[in-house]
């Protein structure tokens, strides 16, 4: 008897079909899909129409904003929350120039973004054609890199490189300008290419050892951290370092949330509107450990007198930030996580220093018992953030309310505080709220705005309505450009110039006309109910809170002054 073994059927893989040539626009969509992009914020127009044509049926969800600036700012917030590049899309000419503020905003705050613009056809470029503008040239100072695509064959490589650049090292915006003919012409669009490597430098081990010795020898050290922490997703390493060393800590505007507000030894924000505890401790410290911050003038005041008694350790992901404004004794560039983990030394004895800093926090705690019956914005913001809990994301506009949010809101994670820190873009709040909600749909997203700022992108209420985004908007209305008025009062001899906004529209009516629930409050007694209603409402809602126009933000470091010379009240 013999056994017959049936031969195994041979599996012959059919050769992959040769890729068919596709339009450049189709290659753009495929490149975005390969990057895992889910949302694009944009506005169509002539030169970008082929891309919009290719979007139909793709895996990408396009969010139609009502102004291209809204697209760029929403993409900015999306990038901050996800850590992946936010994508915005606009046509040539005015569509492209309307993106510029949002691109600059992302550049100043090191936010990953890919901005895609349509361009007139290649043969028309340089002829002053209809809706032609040199967006490549216009944006050169405010992008990490930029491309004009000259051949559709390059689209896969350029897009892959742009995304890698935007998210790597110190993140930033990358612009891709697409001439119309490039999006219409066909190409294979090979995906066989090598990407450049964008690794951070390896931290200098000897420098870390020197830093450890300085930490061990310090008697009055301060940890000064900033936006580099959320960029590097290094809040875990920062928290561990703060906990094992007990070194009192201060934050920049962009660093807020990296340590939870209630962390022991956290002294609050430093700088122009920082806490007296933070600024005093910096003035007295003998060692300043700066991590992921850049000695920005709003943080340091007069830089020559900033931390005058301190030896300095400066740690940053970007080597070009170290020593730019203040020369450190030890500078370390590289991954903040690795460097913080390498700082294993503990100060020998800082108990009395820690106690002194704790005393400063108690002694100079912000008061919340303002006289009168009107709404006291700092107290309302504190209560709102505490009621919202750890799920909160606040997106801010720019002005007095922005500083009140930074001073008085409770944050438990860095992505909870989205603010235009470097550029100070009025109009950031609502588009950022849109971006944040799409990036993290389960979050409680609250936009805090002012009556000046909200008018700069109020058209995006239509976007909120269209996509039924449950954004909660708290509008603090003092019928003035409050921060400008404050400076005119304090530093321009009360010569008030062009700050009156008393002819504002009825904001609750405006919101309702967009189909958004809204209500107005005037008294402190209404605040608890307003907060409850804001947080309980399922859909979008606007609370219009009218506040005292004479209210100022305190403390304040006058311009060109040392941080220690803080003002607490008007002269």
């Amino acid at each position, binding site marked *: 008897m013999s056994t017959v073994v049936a031969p195994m059927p041979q599996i012959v893989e059919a050769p992959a079909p040769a890729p068919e040539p596709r339009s450049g626009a189709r290659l753009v969509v495929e490149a975005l899909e390969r990057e895992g992009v889910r949302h694009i914020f944009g506005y169509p127009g002539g030169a970008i129409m082929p891309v919009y044509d290719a979007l139909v049926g793709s895996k990408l969800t396009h969010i139609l904003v009502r102004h291209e600036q809204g697209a760029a700012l929403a993409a900015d917030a999306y990038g901050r929350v996800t850590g992946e590049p936010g994508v915005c899309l606009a046509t040539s000419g005015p569509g492209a120039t309307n993106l510029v503020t949002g691109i600059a905003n992302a550049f100043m705050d090191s936010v990953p973004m890919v901005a895609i613009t349509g361009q007139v056809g290649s043969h028309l470029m340089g002829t002053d054609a209809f809706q032609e503008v040199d967006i490549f040239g216009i944006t*050169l100072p405010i992008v990490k*890199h930029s491309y004009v695509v000259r051949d559709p064959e390059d689209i896969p490589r350029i897009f892959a490189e742009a995304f890698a650049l935007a998210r790597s090292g110190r993140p930033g915006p990358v612009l891709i300008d697409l001439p119309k003919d490039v999006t219409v012409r066909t190409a294979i669009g090979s995906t066989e290419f090598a990407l450049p490597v964008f690794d951070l430098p390896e931290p200098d081990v000897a420098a870390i050892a020197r830093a450890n010795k300085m930490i061990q020898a310090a008697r009055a050290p301060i940890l000064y951290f900033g936006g580099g922490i959320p960029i590097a997703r290094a809040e875990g390493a920062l928290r561990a370092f703060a906990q094992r060393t007990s070194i009192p800590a201060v934050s920049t505007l962009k660093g807020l949330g990296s340590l939870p507000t209630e962390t022991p030894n956290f002294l609050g924000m430093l700088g122009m509107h920082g806490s007296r505890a933070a600024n005093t401790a910096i003035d007295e410290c003998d060692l300043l450990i700066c991590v992921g911050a850049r000695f920005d003038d709003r943080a340091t005041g007069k830089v020559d007198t900033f931390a005058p008694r301190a030896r300095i350790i400066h740690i940053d992901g970007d080597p070009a930030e170290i020593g730019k404004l203040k020369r450190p004794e030890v500078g370390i560039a590289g991954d903040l996580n690795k460097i913080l983990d390498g700082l294993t030394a503990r100060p020998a004895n800082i108990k009395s220093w820690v106690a002194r800093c704790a005393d400063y926090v108690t002694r100079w705690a912000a008061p919340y018992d303002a006289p009168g019956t009107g709404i006291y914005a700092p107290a309302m913001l504190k209560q709102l953030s505490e009621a919202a809990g750890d799920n909160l994301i606040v997106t801010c506009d720019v002005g007095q309310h922005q500083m009140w949010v930074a001073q008085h809101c409770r944050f438990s994670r860095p992505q909870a505080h989205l603010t235009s820190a470097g550029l100070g873009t009025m109009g950031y709040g609502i588009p950022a709220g849109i971006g944040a909600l799409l990036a993290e749909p389960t979050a409680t997203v609250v936009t805090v705005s002012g009556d000046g700022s909200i008018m700069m992108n109020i058209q995006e209420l239509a976007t909120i309505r269209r996509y039924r985004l449950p954004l909660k908007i708290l509008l603090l209305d003092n019928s003035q450009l409050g921060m400008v008025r404050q400076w005119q009062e304090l530093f321009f001899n009360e010569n008030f110039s062009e700050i009156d906004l008393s002819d504002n529209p009825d904001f609750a009516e405006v919101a309702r006309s967009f189909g958004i629930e809204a209500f107005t409050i005037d008294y402190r007694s209404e605040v608890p109910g307003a907060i409850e209603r804001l947080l309980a409402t399922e859909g979008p809602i606007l609370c219009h809170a009218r506040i005292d126009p004479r209210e100022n933000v305190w403390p304040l470091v006058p311009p060109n002054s040392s941080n220690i010379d803080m003002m607490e009240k008007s002269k």
Partner: protein
Amino acid sequence: MTTRPMSTQRLVVEFTAEEGALIRMLGVVERRGFIVRRTVMAELPCGRRATLALTVEPRDAGRSVEMLALQLGRIHGVGRVHHESTFIRDKAA
């Protein structure tokens, strides 16, 4: 006629000669507080690499050419940046 000291510094940048590379570098030099006094560009024989020799003058004493070199170095496409200091005594018109 007066004589005034003018401190100039020379940087040599190796870079990939792609669209916008030159104006990107010159823009950084000017925005970071330096005056461009002289430029010489040369293409290298291999691929699209090139060098740009820049003679620059700081607008004020607070500008460091070492920092400028680092800022040029972070431009995508820029390879190495070398710098050497020179001191020129020049006659102002």
